[in-house]
């Protein structure tokens, strides 16, 4: 025998799915929403997406290079963060803001906590919240193309105005680049579910709880509930951000609990809070509670029931 045999411990075979495939699937799932955003808001939207992706990927590369850590850019997680961040930007934003957001997301929220898998908050969402607080005016300026009026459906709803639900489904409304078209988002969500990248647990628990909350504490009106479900990045948040592996519970029961918590928090923020939105803040707060949720939801081992 010309070379030594490999003698590692079992199992000796592995599944095909890798971290890279998973991240690629998530990126693919965001293509419909991205494409629609560019179609709706023009070349500027494409530029915003490009800059936030580049900002995230470069930040990761530069930080890891400077720290002498292994470069993990090829795993695709920075790409995904960049896409989520870009899709969370209003189309009128100055280009330096998504750039700053990318740097914050990757360096402050991800790398300073130890890199991929170690961050306790969704980097893109944490960056969005950081930007919302720091540049409130620019982050809520929803004018686009020919200075079409700015109010988002939820802001209009809050102000007591009528909202057209069909336009919300298609995406003919104001909002951030990625959140406007419910159909495009559901297409991506279906892809993620089909590829088994995400399970339905978190989004279902989230959306059902939220709908029930809004029905009970809102106007006891199904159209009102439907408008809330379609608006303000809830669909985007439920399928693409709340399901983030790193910052959501790993236990099956914990995932349901997490979804319920997000539903309640989002309902609270939207109905009783100051801003029309609430998804980002709800998810960020949910992220912080994940360790606790996991602790109380560890499954009972096989054959240890009733012991």
């Amino acid at each position: 025998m010309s070379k030594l045999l490999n003698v590692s411990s079992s199992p000796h075979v592995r599944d095909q799915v890798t971290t890279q495939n998973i991240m690629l699937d998530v990126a693919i799932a965001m293509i419909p929403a991205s494409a629609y955003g560019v179609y709706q808001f023009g070349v500027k939207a494409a530029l915003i997406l490009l800059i936030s992706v580049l900002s995230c990927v470069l930040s990761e590369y530069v930080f890891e290079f400077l720290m002498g850590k292994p470069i993990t850019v090829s795993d695709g997680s920075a790409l995904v963060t960049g896409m989520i961040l870009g899709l969370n930007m209003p189309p009128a934003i100055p280009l330096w803001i998504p750039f700053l957001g990318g740097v914050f997301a990757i360096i402050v929220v991800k790398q300073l906590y130890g890199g991929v898998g170690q961050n306790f908050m969704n980097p893109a969402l944490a960056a969005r919240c950081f930007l919302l607080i720091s540049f409130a005016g620019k982050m809520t300026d929803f004018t686009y193309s020919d200075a079409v009026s700015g109010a988002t459906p939820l802001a209009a709803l809050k102000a007591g105005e009528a909202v057209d639900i069909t336009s919300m489904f298609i995406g003919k409304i104001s909002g951030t680049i990625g959140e406007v078209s419910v159909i495009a988002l559901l297409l991506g969500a279906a892809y993620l579910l089909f590829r088994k990248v995400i399970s339905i647990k978190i989004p279902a628990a989230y959306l059902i709880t939220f709908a029930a909350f809004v029905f009970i504490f809102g106007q006891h009106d199904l159209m009102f509930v439907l408008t809330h479900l379609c608006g303000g990045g809830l669909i985007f948040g439920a399928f693409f951000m709340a399901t983030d592996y790193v910052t959501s519970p790993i236990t099956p029961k914990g995932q349901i609990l997490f979804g319920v918590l997000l539903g309640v928090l989002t309902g609270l923020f939207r109905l009783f809070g100051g801003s029309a939105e609430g998804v980002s803040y709800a998810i960020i707060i949910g992220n912080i509670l994940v360790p606790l949720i996991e602790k109380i939801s560890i499954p009972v081992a096989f054959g240890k029931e009733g012991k």
Partner: protein
Amino acid sequence: MGLATFKGGIHPYEGKELSENKPVQVLQPKGEMVFPLSQHIGAPAKPLVAAGDQVLVGQKIGEPGGFISACVISSVSGTVKTIEPRMVANGSMVPSIIIENDGKYQTVDGFGKERDPKTLSKEEIRNLVKEAGVVGLGGAGFPTHVKLTPKDESKIDTIIVNGAECEPYLTSDYRMMLEEPESIIKGLNIILQLFDNAKGVIGIESNKPEAIKLMTEFVKDEPRITVCPLQTKYPQGGERTLIYAVTGRKINSTMLPADAGCMVDNVDTVISIYNAVAKGIPLIRRIITVTGDAIANPQNYNVRTGTSYTELLEASGGFKTEPEKVISGGPMMGQALFNFNIPVTKTSSALTCLTIDEVACNAPSACIRCGRCVKVCPGNIVPQMIMDAAERSDMERFVKLNGMECCECGCCAYICPARRPLTQAFKEMRREVAASRKKA
């Protein structure tokens, strides 16, 4: 209605097509035979022969070294060369009796003497099984006569014949179900003779439709025996998952199948019981699959224990491509071998020769908490958290998170997209915990 199964598990590449249509061939060994004195769980056997002694086929050369122990029987006739430590599949050195095979296969008196099991008492049956050195041939090697003697035999209500064969590449049990269905039924009937309140169930995975069909036909006139088709899913043939699939009862790591009123025996074990009791043939052979993409001619063999793996490889035409890894057993739970100068023992099941080793090809990366390990774990534990405890060498947390409930099936490590060696780390940690408990 779906097929009987359990929660969790994986669907690895099966690889069974390489050898499933290859009828079992008898392989007659040449030269030196090696009989390790420890081919079972429990105390090693004590040698009954010394260098220079002449031995015959079927002669007892080692006697049980304790309550949980088994005899070692010579599978050839010849001369005892020496007794010395030899390497076995797991890489450890085990005191072994080395016999020079004279190629005559002369047998001891009474070898092959047929008996009608119905005329035998329970005591006589158990004794015949014990004297034949029968142990569980599924891999663990638990002495069968001990298993057949539970504390309260009236509580055993289900005897499960494990024909799941869920480990990828392995086809030996499948071949035996096709080629010796009668021996399986007769063997099972002998076990049922010991347990008056029990019924027999033959569990077979749905990827073996021919075996299900044939066995179902053979149990038609057996009032106490049924065939239970199982969903094809690894580790369907694990003791805990199999009992659950067949009866809906759950046992944990500290319980025995008997605690759930069950007994589980592998297909080849049941045939060995039949051979020992009804045909007067002790356990001197086993069925082995030689397979994998590196082997020239994948094949199933009826091999005498003590034969060197080298002979098995030669009989299969050697390697057509250079192997990356050669495994005693299957790719999920088998032992990677250092070399092939290792004897076939009672617990050998296959020689799987793989050209690629994905465990070694991909460096592990950071956990992304995808939760796939939680989904596939048949033990319903959280491998991700237990891995964290194992990496910190935190024994207390490891135990608290049910790390000792791990059955080392390998599902979590198989599925991990970051290629983290979960099962491997758990094995290490479980050994450490067990060692520290022994000390205390």
